[in-house]
Structures are given as C-alpha cells and as structure tokens.
C-alpha cells in the first residue's frame, strides 16, 4: 500500500438500503515483463442484510477482490463506496489514506480468513476483545459485547480457552465473533471454510445464515460451489470478471446431498 498523501475522499449520496457499491474495479499485477489483470471492470452492489457468495477457481481474482474491498489493497482504478454512517453518506475507500483504511478495517469492515489468524497466546475471549481494545472502547462495554457475541456463536463455555485448545471450527467461530465485535457494516469472508470438514463447514454456514437473518450483510468468496448455494445470490468470477449470477437460498440441510 502506498497512499500516504492527504485523503481526497469526498462524501457522496448512497441509497439507504445499500451497504457497498463497487464500480468498474480494475487491479493489475506486473510479474516480470507481463501484466496480469486480476480484476477486470468488476461492478457489484451489496444491499443491507444480503448474503452474497462469489465463486471461482484459484487465480480467478477472489482474494484480490476481498483485499480491495477490505481496504487491504488499492485497486488501479474504480470506486469502492461504503455507506459509512449507514444513513446514506457514501465514502470511496480508494480515495482514502492508509490511516483511514486502518479505521475502516477496525470499525466498518469485519474480515474473516481461511486460516483463522488468532493470536495464539490469548484466550478466545481476549482474541475477540482485541479490536475493541485497539479502538479504545471502555472495559465495561467490551465485556458486555464480547460475552454476548461468544454466546451468540455458542462458545460461552470456551471463553478462557486458547486457540491450541480449540478445534478448527471453534477457532473460526472465534474469528467470526472478532469480526463482528466493532459492529461493522459488512462481513467479508475469504474461504472461511477452506480448512474445515463438511460437518463443521455446515455449522459455520448456519452461523452465517443466522447473522444474515439478524440483518448482517455478508460477502463470501469461496471455491466451494455447494456452500455458496445457501447465499441469496451466487456470482461467478472468471479471470477477474463476473461471468454469471444466479439466485441461491438453498436450505443448509441440502447442501451436501
């Protein structure tokens, strides 16, 4: 990332029901003498409470997309507008500085990764609390929020456990709670079940559906077409371009049948 100059992000109006609006996103990488186009004019709108799955094989641009939307990387061109105050004030994160990106990641975007990335020396409780500590939230509100979330994902009895004492599925549930703790606008998940068996995968998808039903907006990228079918919309990404879309909404019980 190389944006150290002053931010030029100007507020624009955005529809109240829209969380994220992406326009003509392009991202290229230069490898040796050749230029690889990882994202080629991607357009996407995520509405509040929507669960979208983006599917595609390795190298299709899924992770690049999550990194750009998650303020972890800058695109070459295009706009990524978030409804930052949830009241219609849109800000384009491509016009932000690194410092503003950090705030976006801390407060507005909840990120979930394939490899959990928990801090091994901290308990489940402490790992979930971490973003609130970094955001300087007061201890009372931290305790309330962390306990509520750990209960919501069914880990209230595992609060004092370390990552090494938990299964992969439990660790991923901790990261879901960590992603939610600062009440983000959206959850971005990059292959959240990539390391999990089918039963645990189903359980994680159940949590995602519960979150969606509670009004959370979720964007998940995955190569697993079966789990994608529980999302509201399934978009296919091929060679950096959206090449298809269909409605999902399949029941969770049916995904591995």
């Amino acid at each position, binding site marked *: *990332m190389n944006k150290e100059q002053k931010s030029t992000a100007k507020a624009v109006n955005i529809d109240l029901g829209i969380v994220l609006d992406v326009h003509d996103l392009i991202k290229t990488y230069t490898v040796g003498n050749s230029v690889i186009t990882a994202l080629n004019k991607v357009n996407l709108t995520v509405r509040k409470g929507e669960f979208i799955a983006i599917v595609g094989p390795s190298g299709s641009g899924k992770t690049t997309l999550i*990194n750009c939307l*998650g303020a*972890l*990387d800058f695109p070459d061109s295009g706009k990524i507008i978030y409804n930052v105050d949830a009241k219609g004030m849109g800000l384009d994160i491509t016009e932000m500085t*690194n410092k503003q990106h*950090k705030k976006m*990641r*801390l407060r507005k975007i909840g*990120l979930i*990764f394939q*490899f959990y*990335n*928990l*801090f*091994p*020396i*901290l*308990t489940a409780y*402490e790992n979930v609390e*971490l973003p609130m*500590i*970094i955001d300087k939230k007061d201890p009372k509100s931290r305790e309330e929020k962390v306990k509520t979330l750990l209960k919501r994902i069914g880990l209230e009895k595992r609060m*004092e456990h*370390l990552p*090494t*004492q938990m299964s992969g599925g439990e660790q991923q549930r901790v990261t879901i709670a960590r992603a939610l703790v600062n009440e983000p606008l959206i959850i971005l998940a990059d292959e959240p079940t990539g390391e999990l068996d089918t039963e645990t995968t189903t359980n994680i998808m159940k949590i995602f559906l519960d979150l969606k039903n509670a009004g959370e907006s979720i964007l998940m990228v995955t190569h697993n077409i079966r789990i994608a079918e529980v999302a509201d919309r399934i978009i296919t990404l091929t060679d950096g371009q959206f090449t298809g879309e269909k409605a999902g909404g399949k029941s969770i019980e049916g995904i591995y049948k």
Partner: protein
Amino acid sequence: MKKSKQSKESVSVIQETINYELEPEAIIQTFDLAKIYNITEGIEIRALNGVSISIKKGEFVSVMGPSGSGKTTLLNMIGALDNPSHGAVFINGTNVAHMDDERRTELRLKEIGFIFQFYNLVPVLSAYENVELPMVFAGRPKQKIEENVNKFLELVGLSDKKDHLPSELSGGEQQRVAIARALCNEPSILIADEPTGELDTRMGMEIVNLLRELNKELNQSILMVTHDPMIGALAERMLKMRDGKIIEIITK
C-alpha cells in the same frame, strides 16, 4: 528434586505442597513433567513422560525429535499454554503449572515471547501494529510502546517496512515481525516452535542466526523446537526427545 509430600488429600494440594529444589541460576526448571491423554478407558497416551530440565538465563537451547515425541507439548507447558497432568514448571522461581487464567495470560504477555511456525500475525494490522499488540494488551504506556516497537523493528531489520501488511511481506519478513512482536514486552524467555518450518534453508538459517544475535545482545533465554538437525545444532545445547522423554543432551 521432590523432597516431601505433606498432604495426600487431592492432586492440587499435593502439587502445591511438594518442595522443589530450585537451581539458583535456572530461569526455566521443570520437575517430572507429564502430560497424559486418556483416549478411552484403560488407554492413555503419555505425550510427556517425566521431563526434568533446567535452563539458565541467556542460554539458547534447542529441542529436537521426531513428530509425536513431545516437543511441542513440552513447549506448551513451559509457555503456560497448557496444563501438565503432573509435575511442575518454574519460570523465574514461580510454579506456573497451576496458575489461574488471569496470571497465566499476564505471564504469557510479560515473561515469555512466542514465535510460531505459521507466524500468526493479524492480517488486517500492519507490521508496526502487530508488534505493538502484546504491549497494548499489557497496558504499557504509549511512549514506551512507540519506543520499543521502533527499536525491535530496527533490530530485526524491518524499519522500512513497518507500515506493510503481512500479505505484503515475504515469509522470512513475516517471521521477523513475529520475532519483534515476541520481544517487544522484553520477556526473559523466548519460545520458538518450528520457527523455520515454513521457510527455505537459506531463510531458515537467517532467522536462526538472527535469534542467536538477539540472544547475545539481549541475553534472553531461548527454547527452540525444530526437527531440522542443521537448525538445532546452532543452539548451545540440544535436547533430544523420543516418546515423551529426553533421551540425550548434547552440550557444545
């Protein structure tokens, strides 16, 4: 080692009332340390089976052995990441084997620095922010945090990459960030579990040589688990493990 048992009422009471002979120079000392998993009735696995070791301040010790020999279990006991089934682990003269959770977290944050095979950096935080994490969590003053983070990022040679995210760093650089993070609370002990496991030979040697330099400069004790004999041989003392026991100690 064990001198007397004053009570037989319960395991925890026995643990607390055994008198252990501590070596004055030892910063880590374990007594008859065991971890037993009961798989099913009558069948148990002894991941650790009576390990007694002593490590002095400033010593660089490697632990070697095949998979399943108990290396990581030993490290987890010493790092207060797991409880032993019996035995004792003294860190700076305090038995950590049966500490409560709060004190264990404090010990892990302040007395011990951890380095893992997969770096375990937080992906949404920059190198600087990852290093400052244990200090923020330990409630250190802002000025001290800034001073230490800059100091240790410089020591591991990453001052110019402090604003980079883990995804923008190579494996070796990510492990350097993890080393700076392990050092920032100025612990007396560094614990490294296969720190070169994900790196190629050249980068692996570089990381261990960096650990050796830091060990000489900062005088921390280092306990490093590895399955690579070349890496293990760089330590001053090698402990070889098999079936949950130490079978050989090689001192240079």
